[in-house]
């Protein structure tokens, strides 16, 4: 559980953490000492394996943002939520998927039918930040 405290500083990133966003995988610099390998979706989708979990979506409320019933979300707990991110939030003791909103000191969770405001003194538990959705077409 990570109760969201706006004053909380981010945990230190490990020294060897490299953010590999946008790196063209499979076209390494010739100076680097590794052979070309088949592309690995795991590496593409999971930046921090120790902090990454997969969860299954139950319901249709998030279809507007491309998340469907039965989809798998890739959830990275090491990311601090920022305005607009899709998050897994604990609401009434359950894991739910919502859009996280933050304007100045105002925090709320956005859902299709009702927004959930976070009032002063509430502890909002953001379980993790969803980084990708895996949607199978059911052809297999």
């Amino acid at each position, binding site marked *: *559980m*990570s109760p969201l405290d706006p004053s*909380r*500083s981010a*945990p*230190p990133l*490990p020294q*060897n*953490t*490299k953010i*590999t966003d946008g790196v063209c*995988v499979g076209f390494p610099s010739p100076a*680097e000492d*590794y052979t070309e*390998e088949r592309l690995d979706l795991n*590496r593409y989708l999971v930046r*921090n*394996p*120790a*902090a990454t*979990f*997969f*969860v*299954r*979506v*139950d*319901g*249709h*409320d*998030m279809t507007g943002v491309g*998340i469907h*019933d039965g989809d*798998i*979300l890739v959830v990275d*707990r*090491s990311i601090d939520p920022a305005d607009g991110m899709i998050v*897994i939030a*604990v*609401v*009434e*003791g*359950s*894991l*739910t*998927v919502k859009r996280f909103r933050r304007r100045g000191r105002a925090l709320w969770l956005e*859902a*299709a*039918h*009702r927004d959930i405001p976070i009032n002063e003194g509430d502890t909002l*538990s953001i*379980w993790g930040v969803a980084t990708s959705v895996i949607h199978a077409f059911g052809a297999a």
Partner: protein
Amino acid sequence: MSRSIALVDCNNFYVSCERLFAPHLERRPVIVLSNNDGCAVARSNEAKALGIGMAVPFHEIRHLVQRHGVTVFSSNYALYGDLSDRVMNTLEQLAPRVEIYSIDEAFLDLSMLGDQLDGVCRSMRRCVTQWTGIPVSIGVAPTKTLAKVANRIAKKSPRTGGVLDLTDPALQERALRRLETGDIWGVGSRLKRKLAQCGITSAIQLRDASPQWIRRRFNIVLERTVLELRGIQAMSMDDAPPTRRSITTSRTFGQKVTDLEPLREAVAHFVSRAAEKLRHHRLITGSILVFLSTSRFAKPGALYRNSHTATLLEAVSDTPTLLEHAMRGVEAIYQKGYRFNKAGIILLDLHPEENYQATLFSDLEKRQRSERLMKTVDLLNSRLGRGAIRFGAEGIGDNPVWKTSARRKSPAYTTCWKELPRVIAHDRVGRTPYERDIP
């Protein structure tokens, strides 16, 4: 500069694993039962407050469970093994030297931190909890035994905020005055009684006893404990007493290993050592975790770490059975093309061997034969030197696959696609989304 050793210990680890995917259980009493739902092996603080003791048979606490609505889980070692691996992996990214001591404990060498110690430990604690969802406590001191003491206080006293730095001798003195000998690492109830017969009841008395006398009257291990209580490092990982719940053997290799065969050999060696320790302490194990890891300094594409946890049909202590499961584990997680630099095993779900209960499917004769063989092997190894008798790392034939009794087991949230945690994306509240999805 003086040494600073940190002990990072997961709080009520098995319960914390269950709560991660069932957040409605926060602040509610929860217990986890051992294999075959025998007795409580993990308790939330709320369950402890109800008077549910450690390792108490389930039938003796059933009335408490019913009266107070305690949530009960069968043990789910695949889940605990995976989350343990995540915690250790996170620690390895944050600290230079990590020794995995048990499924939920690791020692870190933080000697170079100086006066930043407290701050770093606090952010480390926050980081582990955020990344893995498992709350931890951290105790720091000049030796492992004192780090254990520091951790114990960090865990029990809310004022510490989960971190206690006990590098100051004056603080050590104050802490040891309040503890009994039985609260010290490696001092079990038998030793505690024998010490009491000599008039030694408090931890500070033990610290101030003459090490030579302790060695003569008791043994060399307790002498090391005395030295460690004085702030002198005397305990290597191999001498460390086993925890009540797990035995760990792991090594960082001298050179990188890419092939399966040397990894199998290394893991087989760890299994032999751990099994020997298991039998020495007259314990049996119901579950074995194997892990492989590349160096944390490897390039992003060359980083790999994985673990595999096998739950045994019945608890054993014989090397061949454990080897068979460990070898299957290694093969399941080995990936070609990576340069491994670390491997290890953790024996979980430990019980005293006298608690062994035969099941309908037990082959008692085979078990007795195996016990006799193990006695001979251990005897020969102790006479001829460790490793005189080794096992060819191969299986001992097919085991039929049936399930141990585990009626209250939570889903394999992190190791099975069919059992992923469910997240709600609808407005119908009032149903629990994490109930097992069984087709």
